[in-house]
Structure formats: structure tokens, C-alpha cells
């Protein structure tokens, strides 16, 4: 799968327009889910965060985890990353992901010390920790990751001298340098202006079309309606998961977000009709 994906990245010249993104790239590995969540419950002490969450993520899908603050989206992500244990139930990763070498993670913020100068190249290369590679392979992986996010020209620049949007792209490049099958992102668009958000999501959508599976935590319904193939809606410890077309409808979103005005989205209009 990785070879196919790598070849597809090298040869990909034409990017599908947004409206054709409903069907992700299907391949043989698609038969086994990349991630299978079974009756997963999370709790901090006696406080239950999530109860009996179950859904499957297949290769090439673009998932948005949506919900208000404190609904357990980031806790769920932390559980997938192995940072907090499940109270009940379990999640199963595809065999190729079990070593975690092919899982990329983009945190919401960088916890590095801002007074410590670090070049973009050095920052991205830290994404290769835990992967044994030859120097030439490391160089190739670095070049690939920087190129994917149009960061080659910034390679020697200090990470801290970049704008917020550029820094976020560098964090994505740090995840991509592992050549992941599965990319997990924690609110990557927070604090970015609309143009930068849009550019970042376009890059992610291109990568998804080239075979990458993405699971992204977000508050932004507008972005979800534009880019998600699937969504998981987190609300009061419960999770509704399914295709964006099925779940991003006015009645469901009203139930989730109360009386908040909903963004324009084709699925919502369909539901009205």
C-alpha cells in the first residue's frame, strides 16, 4: 500500500476538484479497516468522557471529529495515540499500523521552547524518531515532506520566524516525513485565518485523494461540510459516526449545536428537500 501511495504521490499531477471528493481511493487494503473502534469508553477517574463508541475508518477516508468543547474529541484522539487508556472496549489498528511507525500526528500547538532556534528542516526531521533509516532515505523522506507542503524554500529558516499558517504546515510536514498511512490531527486550523485554513485543507484533501487516511479534530462545521467524507459527532459522551452526507444534516446538527445558525452545506439542503 505504501509503495502504491508513494508512486501515486510522485505521479499525481492532476488534483480532483472538491466536488469529486466523495469517493476515496479504494485499494485492496480497504477491506480491513485501518481503525476499528469497538464499544470504547473513556473516563478520567469517575467522570465518564465517552461511552460505547463504535465505528470504522477505512483507507482513503477523510474523517472530521466534530463537537463542542469538552465533548471528548481530543481525549479520544489521545486514546488512539496511546496516551490514555480505554476504560472499556478497545480499538484495533490495521496490522501495518501496529508499530505506529506509519501513523502521523499533528498536534494543535507546538510545545517546543520558542527561545530555542530550530530550522524547519531540523523540526521536520524530528518526525523520523523511532524509524530506523539510512541517511539517504532520511534525506529523501525530508525532501518529500517539505515538497508536499511547499516548504522546500523555507528549509533553513527558523521555525519561530514563520507565520502561524506556515508553522502549521511545518507541523504537518513533520507528520508526513514518516510517510504515514494514517494522519491524526488535533484542531489544526485553530488560530489560522480563513485563507490559510483553506490552503491547508486543500493540501490535506489532495493528500487524502492520493491515498492518505485522515482523522481530524475540529470545531468547524463549514470545513467539515467542504472536505469531510465521514464525520463523528461527539455529544454528551455519545458519538454518532457515518458518512458526511448522512450526518451533516440540519436536524442532526441542530440537535448537536442547539439553535446555532448552521453553515451553508449541500447535505443540509438535501435534507431540507
Amino acid at each position: 500500500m505504501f509503495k502504491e501511495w508513494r508512486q501515486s504521490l510522485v505521479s499525481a499531477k492532476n488534483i480532483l476538484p472538491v466536488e469529486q471528493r466523495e469517493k476515496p481511493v479504494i485499494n485492496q487494503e480497504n477491506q480491513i479497516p485501518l481503525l476499528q473502534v469497538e464499544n470504547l469508553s473513556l473516563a478520567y477517574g469517575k467522570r465518564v468522557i465517552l461511552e460505547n463508541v463504535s465505528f470504522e475508518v477505512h483507507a482513503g477516508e477523510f474523517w472530521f471529529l466534530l463537537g463542542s468543547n469538552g465533548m471528548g474529541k481530543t481525549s479520544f484522539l489521545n486514546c488512539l495515540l496511546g496516551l490514555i487508556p480505554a476504560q472499556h472496549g478497545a480499538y484495533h489498528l490495521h496490522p501495518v499500523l501496529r508499530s505506529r511507525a506509519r501513523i502521523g500526528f499533528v498536534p494543535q500547538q507546538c510545545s517546543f521552547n520558542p527561545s530555542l532556534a530550530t530550522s524547519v528542516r531540523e523540526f521536520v526531521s524530528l518526525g523520523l524518531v523511532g524509524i530506523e533509516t539510512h541517511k539517504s532515505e532520511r534525506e529523501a523522506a525530508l525532501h518529500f515532506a517539505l515538497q508536499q507542503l511547499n516548504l522546500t524554500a523555507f528549509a533553513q529558516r527558523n521555525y519561530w520566524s514563520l507565520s502561524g499558517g506556515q508553522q502549521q504546515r511545518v507541523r504537518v510536514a513533520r507528520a508526513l516525513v514518516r510517510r504515514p498511512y494514517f494522519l491524526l490531527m488535533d484542531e489544526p486550523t485553530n488560530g489560522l485565518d480563513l485563507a490559510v485554513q483553506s490552503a491547508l485543507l486543500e493540501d490535506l484533501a489532495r493528500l487524502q485523494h492520493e491515498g492518505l487516511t485522515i482523522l481530524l479534530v475540529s470545531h468547524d462545521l463549514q470545513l467539515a461540510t467542504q472536505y469531510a467524507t465521514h464525520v463523528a459527532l461527539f455529544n454528551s459522551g455519545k458519538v454518532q459516526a457515518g458518512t458526511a452526507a448522512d450526518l451533516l444534516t440540519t436536524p442532526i446538527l441542530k440537535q448537536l449545536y442547539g439553535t446555532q445558525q448552521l453553515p451553508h452545506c449541500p447535505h443540509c439542503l438535501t435534507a431540507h428537500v
Partner: protein
Amino acid sequence: MFDDFVSSWGLFYPSYITGWLVAFSLSLVGVFVVAKDQIFISAAVAQASSFGVALGLWLSLATGIAWFGSDVALMNSAVLFAVLAALFSSHSIRRDSVEAVTGWIFLSASSGAMLLLTHSPHGTEEVHRLLASSLIGATQFDMWVFVGFAVFTVFMLLRYWQALLLFTLDPRMAATTGLSVWRWGVFKALWLGLAVGLSIRVSGMLYVFACLVLPALVAKRLCGEIGRLLWVTPIIALFASGFGFVFANHYDFPPGQVTVAVLCSLLVLVWFLRANQE
């Protein structure tokens, strides 16, 4: 000046070499302390290590068992308390922050060391000696201990530099790459504790604390990449201790304090240069 130093070499070479090895090793460990901006933690660990030495001396006086006051016992006690302090100071306790815990360690170790030895003969003098730093008493045994520690430190950095760096700067990210945060946390605490605990009895708190943080702080201002700290930091530490020892020998100053003064001056110099550049 240099001739004076060479003529003193035969008598003091274990102290000189030990002092340089302490500076070299601690400066490399200090890269991670400075990278995480944990300056105060290193002071607390050094102070806890001093408490370990004070406790050993007190036990030997209180129980009459001379072994407690032996070099080996004092070294073990210093290392033990430094490791414990490094382990505890990297965690918040309940709702109190890491800084609060670190402050508690520093203050309780400072007052504890003084209280333990106040009523013993030469006790207060010994505590002051630990705080003030004196490199003169280092032996050949100390020298070989630090040769071993320096080799271990270089090996670990060559082999695990990136993993250590990622764990230090971003433990959550490190965990997602498959690194065991718990294991690396314990290793880092042991490494810092060992570095400080081994050094404190030989070179004192002032020299230990200075070598941990000042070379890396100077290098941080000079380097455009974290990776360069790995070789710039020990060069600065060796330059400062080399110059400091020669200067101190010629003008009859304490070498530890002169080295610290050189490092402090270098830091002011790079602050000034950077301010001009910016």
C-alpha cells in the same frame, strides 16, 4: 600565566582533568535542561544532591559509623537524592505546578542540609564548602569516574540524540512515535541525577549549576539549530573551564568561581552581540 599552570600540573592534574570532564559532561546534559527551560530544576537537583552529602555526614557523626562519611557513601547519597529530586521535579503534584514542586525541593533541601549539620563540628563549614565549590580535592578515582560518565554521555547522545530531544521538547509527540514516555522520563531523571550527584561532592553546587546551564545558554544564543548545541555547548564549557583554571592558578583565585565568572561574562557578551544584531 600558562607556564605557572604547566608547573602546577603534576600536583593538581586530577583536579584539572576532573573539572574539565565535569564541565564537558554537565554542559551536554544541560542542553536538555536549557532546551526545556528548566533552569530552576537543575538548581533544585543540585541542592538536593548537597542535602544527600550533608545527610551522609550527619549519619556518620550521629551513629559513629565512619562508613557513612566515606567518599563512596557520600557519592551514593548525593546521586540518590539528585535522582529522586530529578524524578519528583518533573511532575506536578495534585494541582501544584512543576515549579511549585521544584521550589519545595530547593527550599527543603537547602534548609535541611544546614539544619542537619549546624551543631556538628565543621558541619556548617562543610555545607558552605559544598555550596561555594572547590575543585582542589578531586582524586584520580574521581577523574576516572568522570571519564566513564563522559564516555557514557557521548554514547547516549550519538545514539539517541533525536529521541531524547523530541522527548524533552514534546513528550506527547514522542509518545505518538512509539517512544515510552515513562521509560525516557526515568532515564532522563537518572542521567541528570547521576551527572549532578557525581559532580556535587567533587566540584560543589556553584560549579555544577553553572556548568549545567550557562554553556547551553550561551550556545543557544549562537546556534541557529538545536543540533549545533551538541558540539558548541561543550566547546564553550571547555573553553571557560580551561581559561578559568589557568587564570585562577596564576592569580591564586578559586578555579570554580573563575570559570563561573567567565561563563557569566560570555553570556552577557552574546546577549549584547545578539541585541546589536537584532
